[in-house]
C-alpha cells in the first residue's frame, strides 16, 4: 500500500519543494505548467487504456500532428472552430482505428504496427501539408489552448472532463472491464467469448480521438497547424502511464496514476527550468525517474504474489 502511494507522495514532495523556488507559485508559472502538461496528459489518458489492454501506441506523436494539421486546415478552408476541432478529433480516431484494426486483424504486435504507422502518419501529414504549417486560423481558436475559465486555464477543464470520462470508461463500463481482462490474459478473454478484436480496436480509436484533441490543443497554443508537431511525445505519454503504475505487460494502470505521472514529469521540467538546470540534464533526470518508478513497482508486486 505504501508503495502504491509512492507516486502521490513523490508528487506532493516535489510540489512542496518547488514552493521554495522563487516564481514557482506565481499564477503565470502555474498555468504555464498546466498548459504544457495538458497535451501530454490527454494523450497519456488514451495511452493508459491501450497499455491496460497489453498494447502500446508509438504513433501518438504523429497522430497528434495529423489531427492538428487536418483540423486547422478545415478552419483555414472556412469551417467553424468547433467543426475544425471535431474534425481534428475524428482524424485522430481514424488513425487510432487503423492501428487497432491492423493489430487485431493482422495479429501483429502493436509495437510493430505503431512503429510503422508512426512513420506512415507523419509522412502523410507532411505530404498533405507539403511540409508547410497552416497559419490562417481564426483568432478565437486560441481560446482552446490559452483561454481561462473561472480563473483556471481552459485546458485544465478539458483535461479534467477527459480524465473523468476515461476513468468512468475504465472502471464502470464493459469496455473497461474487458480491457483489463484482455491485458491480463488475452487467451482467457478470448475463451470467455469476448469479442477481443472489436474491443481492442475501440480502445485504439478512443485513444486516437484523445490524441486528436491533444493535437488541436497543441495547434491552438502555437496558433499553427504544424506538421512536425509532437515528435517524441509518445515516449513522454508512455512514461506518464508507467510512472503512474501502469504495466507494459497489460492488465494494470489507472487514470489517477497517469495524471500523477504526467504532473511529476511536468513539475520536474518546470522546476529545473526555474532553477536554471540545463534541459540536457532534465532528459537524464526524467529517464532515471522512469526506471526508478518501475523498479519500485516491480518490488511491490514481487512481495505480494
Amino acid at each position: 500500500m505504501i508503495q502504491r502511494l509512492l507516486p502521490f507522495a513523490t508528487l506532493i514532495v516535489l510540489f512542496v519543494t518547488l514552493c521554495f523556488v522563487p516564481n514557482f507559485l506565481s499564477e503565470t508559472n502555474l498555468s504555464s505548467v498546466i498548459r504544457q502538461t495538458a497535451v501530454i496528459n490527454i494523450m497519456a489518458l488514451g495511452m493508459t487504456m491501450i497499455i491496460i489492454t497489453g498494447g502500446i501506441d508509438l504513433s501518438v506523436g504523429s497522430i497528434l500532428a495529423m489531427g492538428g494539421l487536418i483540423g486547422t486546415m478545415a478552419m483555414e478552408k472556412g469551417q467553424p472552430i468547433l467543426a475544425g476541432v471535431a474534425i481534428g478529433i475524428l482524424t485522430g480516431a481514424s488513425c487510432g482505428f487503423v492501428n487497432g484494426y491492423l493489430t487485431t486483424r493482422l495479429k501483429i504486435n502493436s509495437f510493430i504496427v505503431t512503429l510503422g504507422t508512426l512513420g506512415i502518419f507523419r509522412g502523410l501529414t507532411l505530404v498533405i501539408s507539403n511540409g508547410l504549417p497552416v497559419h490562417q486560423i481564426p483568432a478565437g481558436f486560441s481560446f482552446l489552448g490559452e483561454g481561462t475559465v473561472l480563473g483556471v486555464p481552459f485546458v485544465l477543464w478539458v483535461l479534467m472532463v477527459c480524465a473523468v470520462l476515461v476513468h468512468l470508461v475504465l472502471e464502470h463500463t464493459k469496455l473497461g472491464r474487458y480491457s483489463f481482462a484482455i491485458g491480463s490474459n488475452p487467451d482467457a478473454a478470448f475463451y470467455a467469448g469476448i469479442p477481443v478484436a472489436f474491443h481492442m480496436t475501440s480502445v485504439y480509436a478512443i485513444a486516437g480521438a484523445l490524441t486528436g484533441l491533444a493535437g488541436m490543443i497543441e495547434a491552438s497554443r502555437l496558433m499553427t497547424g504544424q506538421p512536425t508537431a509532437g515528435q517524441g511525445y509518445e515516449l513522454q505519454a508512455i512514461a506518464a502511464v508507467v510512472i503512474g503504475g501502469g504495466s507494459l505487460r497489460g492488465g494494470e494502470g489507472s487514470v489517477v496514476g497517469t495524471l500523477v505521472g504526467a504532473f511529476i514529469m511536468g513539475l520536474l521540467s518546470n522546476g529545473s527550468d526555474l532553477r536554471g538546470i540545463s534541459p540536457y540534464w532534465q532528459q537524464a533526470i526524467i529517464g532515471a525517474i522512469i526506471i526508478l518508478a518501475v523498479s519500485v513497482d516491480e518490488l511491490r508486486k514481487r512481495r505480494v504474489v
Partner: protein
Amino acid sequence: MLLELKSVQKRFGGVTALRDGNLTVRAGEVHLLMGENGAGKSTLMKIVAGMQRSDGGHMLLRSHPVSFASPKEAALSGIAMVHQESLLAPHLTVGENIYLGREDLGPFGFVKRSAMMARAAELIEFHGFPLKADWTIDRLSPAGRQLVEICRAIASGASLLIFDEPTSSLSESETKEVFTIVSKLKEKGAGVIYITHRLEELRSVGDRVTVLRDGATVHTGDLKDLSRAQLIQHMVGRDLGALYSRQPLPAGKPMLEVNHLTRGKLLQDISFTLKAGEIVGLAGLMGAGRTELCRAIFGIDAFDSGDIRVEGKPLRVASPCDAVAAGIALIPEDRQKTGLATQLSVGWNLTLASLGAHSRAGILQSAKLAATEKKYIELLRIKTDGPSQKSVRLSGGNQQKIVIAKWVAQGARIFLFDEPTRGIDVGAKTEVFEVMDSLTRQGAAILMVSSELTELIQVADRILVMRQGKISGELPGRTTQEEIMALAAFEEKEALQ
C-alpha cells in the same frame, strides 16, 4: 537421513501457507506428499528447491543445516524438481531444455550442441518417451512438456528429486513409464518426493507418506499400514463416505448435435448427440483428439466439414463469441492459461462472460454485479476472502469453481468440461461433480473429457471413446476401465479378442 524439515513456516502477506511443515526423507525411498490443494505441499517443496525462502523452521540436508537462496543453489546440492506447471523455454528444443543451464561447453564457451542433442535423444529413447530431441517446446502438449521436465530432472543426476504431481496430465502408459523411472531412481539410492492427488497410484510406487493439512504435517508413516479411507481422513479431516455416485436422469431433448465433424487427421467424421440432463464422458489417450473436438465445437479452431446443431438449429461457429451466444461453454484443461485471468479478482473473473447481462448500454450495473459475485461464491462454496481477492491466490479447486461459475452466471446450457478435475484435491472433485449434476438437473447437457477412467465411470451416463481422431466406440456409464482402455488403445478387431 537425506532431508529433514522441522516446523517450516511460510507466510504470503497476511496468508499463512505453512504453519508447521515437517518432513523426513531417507535415501532410497519414495516419499509421497499428500494433502488437499492449498494444504501447503507445493510451498513446502518450493522451499526445498530454493524457489522460495522459509520464514521459520529448519532444513537439514544430509544432517547439515541448509537454506537455498535460488533454485541453482538447490541444484548444486543435488535437488531437482519436476514442476506441475511447465517452466520450460517454449522456443527452444526439447534437448536444449533438458540441458538448459548445464550445457557442455567447448573452447571459448561455445556450446557443444550436437553432442548435447545426441545425449538428449539417447535419454528420451532409453525411457521410450514419445518425444524428439529437436522438437521445440511450444509444439508440445502439457503432457509432453511434463515428460521434458522429467527428463531434465533425471539428466541433472540429482540425489533428491521432487515430482509435483507429474502424472495428472499423462496417459496410462506414460504414467507407468514415470513409475519405472521413479523405481530406478530409488534403486540408485536417490530420495524421491512425490506430490500426488491420485490415490490409485500410491500403492505401486510409495514407501512412506506424509500428509499435510492446512499448512501443517498431520501424519507421517509407512504407506502399507495405511488404508485408503484412513488416508482420505487425514487429508480432509473428515470421513468422505462412499465415492461419488450420481443418480442418472431421464435424457431430455437433444441440446447439441455434432454431425460428421472433420478437421484434417485430428478429427475424422465425429458424430454424437448431447441431450438435456445428460453427462456424456469422453475418454481417450493423449492425442486422441478430445481437446481438439472441444476446441472445434467452441469455435477456437476452424474445421473442414461437418455441422453442429444447437437445440435443432444449425450453428456456424467462427469464434468463441458465436459458441457462447448459442449457450455453449468450455471449461478448458489449462486453467491458468486459458480459463482464468489469474491476476484479476475473483469477482471480475466470475462475471467476465456475463458482463452483457450486467450492463445497460455498455455501463456496468455494480449492484447487480456484486449480487451475482456474492451469489456464486456462496452457491459453489468458493473459498476466498471476498470477490476482490486476486484469483491467483486461490487453490486449484477454487479456481476451477470460478471458471465453472463464470459460465453458470452467463446462462450456458451446453458445457464442455475438459479435464475438470486436473490438479484438484479429492474434496473439491466431489464438489465439481455435484455442480455438474445440479446443472444437468436444471436441463443442461454436459460433455466431460477426462483421463481419469474411474471418474468417468462414476459420473457419466454414457462414455464415448476416441482413438486417433475418431470415435472408436460408445459404452454405458457403468462400464469397466478395461473396456474403455480396450477401445481407447486398440483397433476394433484386437479389442474384440
